[in-house]
């Protein structure tokens, strides 16, 4: 298989990472060599294998639905690049 520039552009859009032409070419090369390596998995027949979905074979513990961290609005906002009183500010979404 081969990952072309069009696919790279598509993945870059999905990942929300802008890449220029030069970077896209480099990524295509890298990803192709990585996927050549990954293709090795096709040697294995896995039709009847159950996928491993959880490494720890325990059931999740239930807890009561209580608020533990109260009044931490200030802490949550503290690291925001831009905020206005109690809100995160982002570039205008609606014209």
């Amino acid at each position, binding site marked *: 298989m081969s990952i072309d520039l069009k696919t790279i552009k598509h993945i870059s859009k999905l990942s929300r990472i802008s*890449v220029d032409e030069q970077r896209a070419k480099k990524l295509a090369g890298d990803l192709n060599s990585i996927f050549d390596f990954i293709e090795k998995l096709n040697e294995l027949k896995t039709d009847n294998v159950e996928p491993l979905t959880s490494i720890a074979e325990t059931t999740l513990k239930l807890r009561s639905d209580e608020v533990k961290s109260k009044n931490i609005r200030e802490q949550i906002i503290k690291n925001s*690049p831009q905020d206005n009183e109690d809100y995160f500010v982002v570039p205008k979404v609606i014209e």
Partner: protein
Amino acid sequence: MSDITKQSLTELVENIKNKKLSSTDVTKAFIDRSEKSEELNAYITNDFTSALEKAKKFDQKPNLDSKLPGIPMAVKDLFCTKDIKTTAGSKILNNFVPTYESTVTENIWNEGAILLGKLNCDEFAMGSSNETSFFGNVQSPIDRNLVPGGSSGGSASAVAGQLTPVTIGTDTGGSIRQPASFTGIVGLKPTYGSCSRYGIVAFASSLDQAGPMAQNVKDCALLHEVISSYDPKDSTSIDFKRNHYSKELTNNIKGKKIGIPKEYRVDGMPKEIEDLWQKGIQYVKDCGAETIDISLPNTSYALPTYYIVAPAEASSNLARYDGVKYGYRAKGENLIDMYEKTRSEGFGAEVQRRIMIGTYVLSSGYYDAYYLKAQKVRKLIKNDFDEAYKKVDAILTPSTPSSAFKIGEKTNDPVSMYLNDIFTVPVNLAGLPGISIPAGHDSKGYPLGLQIIGKAFDEQNILNIAYAMEEKINFKNKITDWWIK
């Protein structure tokens, strides 16, 4: 003062408890050496001033019943530390100051230890050489321009270079064991669910584990005993009875059955590694253990599986860095443009590469072929270990397929870089504990490590085997202080 930094954690604890040393003496000594060691680039952020204040405070009213009384310690910059910048080695978190503490570091401070600073690592723990850090590569104390391994490269460098008595790292595919092996120290990756992941910057959540890195096995056991705890704040934390690992440590491993997996004899592995492995086999036999040839038939599929599972989880975890709630934000013409520029400017090349791989294998039309396939193979790999553990108590392998390499040697070829983790990755995929101990040197004088893999929750057993082997191996790390002027 210089010999203080040469002492093991166990010795320092004893000397503080017996009042032969004060916390201030010890803290000063490690700060002094750290300040002389800037060339290693092991620290991203230091907290020396407040460490000294805390040490003085400790000495005024010392609590000598704690496990780490007044012991200074630097930690990997992947652990959130309250009010201390936590970067994960990334530009995107260069201004991030957590308002909360990770459970693992909280456990350490609760036992009396004092934060020295935050240690360099590969960006978001993605790397095997500490060359992907936004804050520059780390030098190995073993030799100039040698990588310390990664991703816990700053941690390995700091312990081997005696800038901190012990430290903690994180291990997703080998990030504790490989750098430990490269720098001649001990590193333990605990069973998945043994140490809380709360407050650790996430990379691949089904693989990530925190663990201790130390000069010797006993120190490693002591620190593990402190950090391992059940934590309701991490839904994958497991509530099992934890040992007093350091107290219960014994070199009596008579009658233990140790598996030697033939699939770890990989093509092109240097003879030095094979010889080291044979030496290791002899050592465990000398300790009265029995070795048994075993097979882990799907070993060669572990790395390809890992390079689907880990990037897939990373692409999902790292979606949170969008320039809105915290971290770096680039200017954009609109919201989407802001996201795309923030992530393009904020993430380094390796992280972008892995997000792209992860996004691709999870994308519509490819999910079954890649992600589902990988989860199935992961099951087969786990089954291999389950099968082997019907016959043996632990498994002995080399830690890495080679010794440390030079800075820049492998940066242009991602696959050759990934191959570093060939012996460590299967352990993460199966959620098992593994420990790397220094076991010899190659012809260049660089350290080589052996790995002991245990059953889930059987850390005590692999620590005991490591402890018994350590005595036989009698490894001496060759640290020349080349970086100190």
